């Protein structure tokens, strides 16, 4: 069973070494790949000086494009499991095995690490929580599924979703839209409670004005996903 950790990184020179060292010291059967999204700081130099496994994008694609690059890499190299792991220190390595076990034991297609099941640890800003609550209700209405943390980037997927996302993944604010997309295809998505840390250094890529555009765009994208028939997986 080949497992890959995808680390999208844009200007994470403060955090990237710690993140990768954390992974190397705490996991044994996970490979990793850093996707450098055309950083303007010295993220690339730091990774190359330390011989990290890295892909350097020629232009800045954003989180969706970077993570999709990771999924393409996973598909091309025959990985069975891929997990998105942020380069800023918010995600915790200890949950990786728990997620993998759940994915396999419960035959899930995707396992999401949710901050809001046990509501412990860094709970994010008010604006973000409002947005997340909104998407929780929207997703429940259109798919019936209760996704408590639809914007979480901490997600693990199996081989069949790797193939779907490698070909088709939203370019910006991809998380809620992609969950709805696979739920509409009849895939099984489950969540486990996780504790996330606050961003350790550097700057987040979502600003206040962008939040409004985000909510409008993602809501429309989710509604568009509902056009056409939904497929139910035949098991």
């Amino acid at each position: 069973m080949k497992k890959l950790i995808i680390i999208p990184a844009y200007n994470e020179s403060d955090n990237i070494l710690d993140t990768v060292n954390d992974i190397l010291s705490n996991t044994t059967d996970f490979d990793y790949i850093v996707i450098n999204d055309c950083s303007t700081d010295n993220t690339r130099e730091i990774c190359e000086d330390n011989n990290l496994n890295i892909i350097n994008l020629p232009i800045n694609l954003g989180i969706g494009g970077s993570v999709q690059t990771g999924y393409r890499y996973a598909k091309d190299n025959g990985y069975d499991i891929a997990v998105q792991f942020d380069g800023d220190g918010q995600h915790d390595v200890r949950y990786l095995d728990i997620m993998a076990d759940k994915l396999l034991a419960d035959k899930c297609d995707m396992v999401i690490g949710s901050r809001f099941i046990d509501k412990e640890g860094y709970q994010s800003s008010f604006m973000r929580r409002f947005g997340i609550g909104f998407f929780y209700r929207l997703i429940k209405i259109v798919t019936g599924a209760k996704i408590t943390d639809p914007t979480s980037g901490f997600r693990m997927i199996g081989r069949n979703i790797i193939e779907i996302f490698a070909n088709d993944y939203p370019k910006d604010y991809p998380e809620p839209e992609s969950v709805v997309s696979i739920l509409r295809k009849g895939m099984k998505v489950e969540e486990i409670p996780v504790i996330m840390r606050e961003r350790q250094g550097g700057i987040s890529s979502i600003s206040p004005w962008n939040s409004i555009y985000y909510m409008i765009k993602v809501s429309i994208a989710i509604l568009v996903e509902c056009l056409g028939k939904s497929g139910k997986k035949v098991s």
Partner: protein
Amino acid sequence: MNTNIRLVILAILLLSLIMLGRQVKKRTLNLKHTLAWFFLILVMMIIDLFPDIIVFFSSLLGIELPSNMLFLFGYILLLVIIYTLTVAISKLSNEIRQMAQKMALMNKELEQLKEQKDTDKEQT
């Protein structure tokens, strides 16, 4: 305005909305660039359902004929759409230039490595 023409316009607008939605779902069109069109259609549907809005704004702005107001409004919205396209094209053009340069530099590096490998081979 006659109710028949308003119903016809509403039907056309709804069909356009569905057609655009399906093209976005098929990934023929990007959602990001289609948003402005969705907004335009939505505004036109509101005006179609509540034409008094146009009458209100035209008297507010001192425009004599409400239909002139409608044309002005439509014209401005179209300019906004064209502007968003201009922004998108500029960004794409920059990205293509960057990628072309990086590819060319990569090819140069590759050639140099090949030459290096050939000279190493010759010396052994």
